[in-house]
């Protein structure tokens, strides 16, 4: 199966010039990714990787990048955190349509992770909701990818947890 996902990284300040990094990514097997270097100090790889599962695809991609640029730090695995426009594009409906759905089913539509001037959802939750309602045909590779990218971002964020706070609040926020 082919899995499409994007990994974006922050580069160490001491890192070699981008031409060298790109050559190393090529040598490390990232030739199935589009490499974006439009933001200085960052590098983004949009993969379409053949693998037996989304997890294999994404984990092997993380390994390849680690091998090529050991000091690069993952910023985000995507698609995971998405707004309504992103969801609409991924599912292939209009934004208005997506917005209508989110308002029409306030009881069951997934709660956003953040709502402020923009609202953000975990894509995985929205895809599962759409698929459970049976009205939308969601392809299984993207469902799998969204589940794994969310897990990877959660693992990355978990490094920020302070154990003292965790012990005190984990039952209160469960």
């Amino acid at each position, binding site marked *: 199966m082919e899995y499409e996902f994007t990994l974006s990284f922050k580069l160490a300040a001491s890192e070699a010039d981008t031409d060298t990094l*790109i050559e190393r990514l090529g040598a490390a097997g990232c030739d199935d990714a589009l*490499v*974006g270097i439009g933001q200085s100090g960052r590098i983004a790889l949009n993969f379409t990787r053949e693998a037996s599962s989304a997890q294999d695809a994404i984990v092997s991609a993380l390994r390849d990048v680690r091998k090529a640029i050991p000091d690069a730090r993952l910023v985000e695995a995507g698609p995971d955190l998405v707004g309504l426009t992103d969801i609409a594009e991924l599912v292939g409906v209009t934004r208005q349509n997506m917005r209508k759905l989110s308002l029409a089913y306030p009881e069951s539509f997934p709660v956003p992770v953040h709502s402020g001037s923009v609202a953000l959802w975990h894509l995985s939750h929205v895809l599962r909701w759409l698929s459970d309602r049976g009205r939308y045909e969601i392809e299984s590779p993207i469902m799998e990818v969204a589940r794994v990218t969310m897990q990877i971002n959660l693992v990355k964020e978990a490094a920020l947890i302070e154990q003292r706070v965790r012990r005190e609040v984990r039952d209160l926020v469960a």
Partner: protein
Amino acid sequence: MARARHPKKEIEAAIRYAEANGWRVAVGGSHAWGTLYCPYNDAECRCGEFCITSIWSTPRNPGNYARKLRRVVDNCAARKRLANSVGGASDLE
């Protein structure tokens, strides 16, 4: 002088599509064949990371890769803004 052609014809076609939309191409590299630069990559740009995109000499799947390159051009926010201001994207296709 004309630039070198990409050895894979579907990728060469995607590069020409980018050029037709104002993107600049710089040739050079080994695993990399060259680099694409968006003409609108400025402070206002919100797409960011793929405004400068590297092009492999021998991507694993040239068909997939050519589609990705075209999508970067199509997703450019400045291009979409421009297309809307002239009443539709049709004349930019």
